[in-house]
């Protein structure tokens, strides 16, 4: 079992910083939903490096991203099942 990033939609949608999407080393792993105005994580691509957590906490100061065990992710978005940007 390993941990993946989970973004708090309520906190994220109140801002428009988009920093985590730019600092994630993995491609298309933190995506951005323009309609809901929030970033979201493709849990099947997340390697759990926690760079986004540091960016959100120290650089953006929003504290919206937390690491959660993969088994406790609720309705996680999986890129391999749904394809890119199905929200």
């Amino acid at each position: 079992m390993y941990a993946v990033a989970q973004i708090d939609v309520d906190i994220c949608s109140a801002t428009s910083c988009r920093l985590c999407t730019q600092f994630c080393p993995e491609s298309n792993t933190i995506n951005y939903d323009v309609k809901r105005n929030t970033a979201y994580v493709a849990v099947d691509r997340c390697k759990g490096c926690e760079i986004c957590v540091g960016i959100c906490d120290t650089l953006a100061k929003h504290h919206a991203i937390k690491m959660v065990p993969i088994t406790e992710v609720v309705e996680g978005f999986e890129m391999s099942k749904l394809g890119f940007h199905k929200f």
Partner: protein
Amino acid sequence: MSLETLRIAPGFESYMPKEYVDLVERGPYGRDVKVSELGTFKEVLEEHPMCAGCAMTLFIRVALIGLPCPEHTVILGTAGCGRLALSQASIPFIYGNYGDTNGVASGLKRGLEIRFPNQTKDVVVMAGDGGLSDIGFSCVMHSWFRKEKFTTVMLDNEVYGNTGGQESGMTNKGMVLKMAPFGKKFEKMDMIGLAKTAGVAYIARLAPTNPTRIANVIRKAVLIAREVGPTYVQAYTSCNIEYAIPTPKVMDDARAVEKDRYGFMEIISDEAKAYLERIEQEKKSKAKAVAGT
């Protein structure tokens, strides 16, 4: 490669992998994508086997966004970490033999100019510090002296990360590594100084602390290489495995190193500067003409 070869033949859409269809439909082709738009379009880079939290991956990912024309670009690399991600991008990737990347790139660029006289093809060498400053050193220097028109990007992780942590020419003096237990005895090579001596048209040094800056630097380097001459970008991309940096601290390390000894630096020749200004003006006048109609 061109955009035509990427498009799916009619009737075959449902048989192609999802990732490929997404790339064709929502990819960055044929338009200028900004770093701030990341996450809203399908990137040319796919899933790759590089370590979690690798700063080199972050650099490569953003550098590929900075390419002015990804559908007409060829990337060359060599053995090392960088090729693990570069070979997973939908940009033709040539895996050069160790040491000959810039030699291959010279021939490729000249060949592409003859084969496609009406279409600019960009050639970018993206390899590690060992591949460019140690093993590929002579080819790198000679391509600069010959004023070959392509971009050289060094992914400087200051170690041979892929083979267990041997010291490279770009490792700092005194650094103790797994395969260099007595510490390095010599100074870090001054590749920026060598590039200056060789008369490289555009030289940049940066750390991956500012994604927009990475994309801008790569964009400038590739554009200048089209017309003016060789360009060189040296990027600090820490190896969190060999230097034992916990992944949440990777960006803190990049910031600390940037402040200490890897600050952003740009050396641009007068000719290259004039060329960039000309492009900007052309872009503005074009935008004005579009707005006027």
